[in-house]
């Protein structure tokens, strides 16, 4: 079943249209990727899903029901949780406080200790640093904390906005391993938006390619990897 569905969405900022006729589906328990270069509309797509931006036309469905008009905090309550681009951690809070705040939604409150254990198991370094301020973590640790914060809220679907951004290649590899683990071990549904197409394709189950606000291609990982267009334009092969 599709957990999340965008149906022919048009949107933009003020008068500038950023998305044209974007349709996509995120299947349960898989990693769906949206690929594209700078300015292709990847972040805009996520904003429509989290509700920060409303669609001009078209529909956004979560578990089969339209969520157009539902404010962002209510969507978070429903389980649509984002790991924002550039982490967006709260620098003056400790790691533990950040995780506490991650479990902000009502649905996550009861499962707090359970989730905390899970998160510490996934990221032992966060347990060691639980009393450290989030602003003092390294890039890789920050990304782990951002993911951990999202997991604390028991997400139904995890939206990830360019988790590789600004990280060293070795750390990027770690982050993608974690995302893969989330799917394989926790059966997490993930929508991953990435510029790092090479990496994203390695863990994707299904993918879409955005170009200048339009979906120009979609397919399974094998289909995308085989595509001439992707090989030439994005992978430089």
């Amino acid at each position: 079943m599709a957990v999340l569905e965008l149906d022919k969405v048009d949107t933009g900022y003020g008068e500038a249209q950023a998305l044209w006729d974007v349709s996509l589906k995120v299947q349960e328990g898989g990693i769906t990727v949206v690929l594209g270069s700078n300015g292709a509309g990847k972040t805009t797509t996520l904003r429509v899903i989290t509700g920060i931006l409303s669609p001009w036309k078209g529909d956004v469905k979560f578990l089969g029901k339209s969520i157009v008009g539902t404010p962002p905090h209510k969507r978070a309550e429903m389980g649509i949780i984002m790991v924002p681009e550039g982490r967006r951690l709260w620098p003056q809070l400790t790691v533990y406080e950040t995780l506490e705040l991650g479990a902000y939604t009502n649905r996550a409150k009861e499962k707090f200790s359970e989730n905390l254990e899970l998160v510490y198991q996934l990221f032992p370094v966060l347990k060691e640093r639980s009393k450290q301020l989030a602003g003092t973590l390294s890039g890789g640790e920050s990304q782990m904390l951002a993911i951990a914060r999202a997991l604390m809220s028991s997400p139904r679907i995890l939206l990830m906005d360019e988790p590789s951004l600004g990280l060293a290649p070795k750390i990027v590899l770690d982050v993608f391993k974690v995302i893969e683990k989330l799917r394989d071990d926790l059966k997490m549904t993930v929508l991953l938006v990435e510029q790092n197409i090479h990496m994203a394709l390695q863990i994707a189950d299904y993918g879409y390619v955005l170009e200048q606000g339009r979906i120009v291609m979609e397919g399974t990982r094998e289909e995308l990897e085989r595509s001439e267009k992707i090989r030439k334009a994005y992978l430089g092969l």
Partner: protein
Amino acid sequence: MSSFSELKARLLKPTPLLIILLIAAVAVARLLNLTTLDTMTIFMYFIAIAASLNLIMGFTGYVSFGHCVFLGIGAYIYALMVYYVPWANALQKTGGLGIIAVALIAAVIAALVAAAVGLAVLRLRGAFFAIATIGLDFAVLYIVMGTVPFINPEQFYGAQVILPSRCLVSKTSTFTAMFITMALVLATNYLVRKSRFGMGLVAINEDEDAAEVMGVPTAKYKTLAFTLSAFFTALAGAVFYLNGGGVSPEAFDLAHTVDMIVMIVIGGLGTVSGPIVGGIVYYWLYDTLLVHYPGVNLIILGIIVGLIILFAPEGVVGILRRYEFKGVKLREVLE
């Protein structure tokens, strides 16, 4: 008994302890007649308004620069009520609690204004929000200057409402009322800081967009914090100007907001103990400089405040929070 020992352990943490000590100190000073009632009332007023502004500015980071508008609204509504409404006047004569009862009406009206305005202007961020609140302050100021003199042209010259002797209360009553106001606002600060609501406010302060997508109803919470803050500011304003015997358009002077901001910055933004520490330090500085260097006291105060903001932007409590004491990180115990 476990709930009792739990409560005891909770109250013995530094922040609640500080609140309790402050309240006890004022009570003792009052009983032993250590200083004049007026001095203590003004001192408590400073702490009360600092703690009120802390609810919005300290916790969410929104600088409500026109916040003195709520002092003015509270003070004017209170003064006009006791002037014209016989039962309100009779009620306030019954003592401190009576004053609080009348002042609550003024505070509720101020809170309603804040809620209505907050829904609109809290969409603005940073400097734009600060400017919008200044606009509100001036708007209300001009409404007051344009209407109050017409209510009673002979008495309210220049929009000043000077309370006649039939409306005045004893200094003991205003002292008690200010004491209650201060205790209420400090307790509210503490409860908010400890609550889920307070956690949400802190997240808004740190990164509002991140807070929103993590499920914090930011618009609702900001408005609620602003409304609470306005409520207590108006309460304190009503009692303070009653203590002074009347209110004039001076109540809308932005310098009052500056006082509040300076106090919470000295003490430490977003902490519960900050406004208390800031209030004590600021009141002491203000008083000492006024006595010893009259005329240049505000210049000296300004320089000191500038230095604090340059070199210690986290304030006293913020700095203390960085240190460890006997293996306990003060960050964890200082709210």
